[in-house]
């Protein structure tokens, strides 16, 4: 399963957004129920799924309020882990 598909599934599960598979990448998820309460769970779910850890600066609803933003953010953390592994 590709990264975006996994993320869309997580949004569906945590935010309860039934059409998460089809929602536009730049659609503001706050209009569909994303708030600071479920955002925290979404971040935790992503951290558990991809074995990443969000920086404190990224713990803002505004950083994860569209599918595109979440994909980019997760990619950034995965790349960071890969770079660290490479350095070792």
């Amino acid at each position, binding site marked *: 399963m590709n990264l975006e598909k996994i993320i869309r599934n997580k949004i569906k599960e945590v935010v309860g957004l039934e059409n998460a598979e089809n929602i536009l990448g730049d659609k503001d998820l*706050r*209009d569909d129920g994303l708030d*600071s*309460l479920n955002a*925290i*769970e979404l971040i*935790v779910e992503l951290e558990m799924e991809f074995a990443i850890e969000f920086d404190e600066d990224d*713990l803002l*609803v*505004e950083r994860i309020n569209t599918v595109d933003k979440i994909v980019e953010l997760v990619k950034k953390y995965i790349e960071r882990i890969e770079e660290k592994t490479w350095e070792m």
Partner: protein
Amino acid sequence: MKEVDVLRYFHDQIFKLKEGTNLLWLFNIGIEEKWTSQYFNVRDVQEEEIIQHMDEILLLVAGKNDIIILREKPRKEYLEYLTEIGIELPTILCPKKRDCSKSISKLVLEDENIIEEIKRRLKKVSFCMVPYAVTKEVEELSKKINIEYIGSKSNVVHKGNNKIFIRKLAGDIGLKCPKGKICQTISEVRNETYQLKNTFPKVCIKRPYGVSGNGVFLVNDISRLERILFMLNKQVIQDGWLVEGWYEDKKDLNAQLYISKSGDVNLFSIKEQILDEKIYRGSIFPVFSVEKTILEEYKIQLKVIGRVLYEKGIRGVIGIDSIISGGEIFPIIEANVRFTLSTYLSFLPYMHHNCIYKMEYYRIPLISENIWFKINKKIVEKNLNFTKEKMNGIFLYNQKCADGKCLQGRGRLFVLMVAENKERLKYFDRIMDCVLAEVIEGYESRKDNKK
């Protein structure tokens, strides 16, 4: 709206201040964010900005000789609207800086002009400060301008808002508490949750501090539990976590107490709360959905709680959240040793005894600068607006929270309904939905539009 007796409601009836003392109101909401800064949290800056602008509620309670400090000057049209309703406006002072990342107390402390202005007024007449919550900054401000304030010391306020402290206190005095316990380790939280899930469809895990549902995690499906535990494990919490069964069939009540320095406990308001699961959306009062005998017993228990809180050093306004489930009273689930939004509107039943009041906010997209005025205009066109002649109707307030000119995203439309009876209240509810559907394209009924 503010007739003479109502105008002096907080001053004379609740705070029992000396005649000639005026009030300096400060809406320093957001102290919980400081208390929870060490927790793993996700911030919503847009929402925080809306919350800060709820300060306009002070316009409804302050007397004409009082001072209120607001983040921004209200719109001229809004002030005119309030005046038409009969509200006598207080003096409004605003700090020069507009920075929602800082508390209003901090902004005032940093603004020499506003400090000088308050001092200048203090020379002529005596004032008492009424903050939303007593914080270290409020104490600093009190010293700086040499003014007394209503409430406990900031360290007592901090202690009193701790959910674990309150649970222990309720247990110590033998009051009924929800099933569950205080857990010190993640493994204890896991075990207790599994245990409670045998009896309750939902279990809630609470951190010691949090507001509006923040810090309260509902486990409806056990598959969510590990995610929540992973999150809890991200920070060390000295007091532990509170794990409780979630009572589905319940009435949520909120009582407002004022504990004076001499120990008098004044129970000045009981309201039924409108909640979206764990998020506060509004209040209905007086309470008509709970049997009178239960309400009387509840009042007795509240007085006991008030006296115990006094012994613990707690003073000033205290909001107590309670539930009634299966005919049983759980008199203190949480306490807010500070004002809450509903505290400010507690004076309403004193204005008109035979009415039902419902305050609630609706989530609306801020699609245009003037959306608040458009909605209000529709209500006026239907002749359902609150007027001082009718003393009932629909009254929109906190204009800034739904002002597309200064805020973005989804605002909060604050609505107060004053109705002669339940049927009329239901009618107002339906009308509000119709008005919103007329003004906002694609608006879904409030019942489906919880976020």
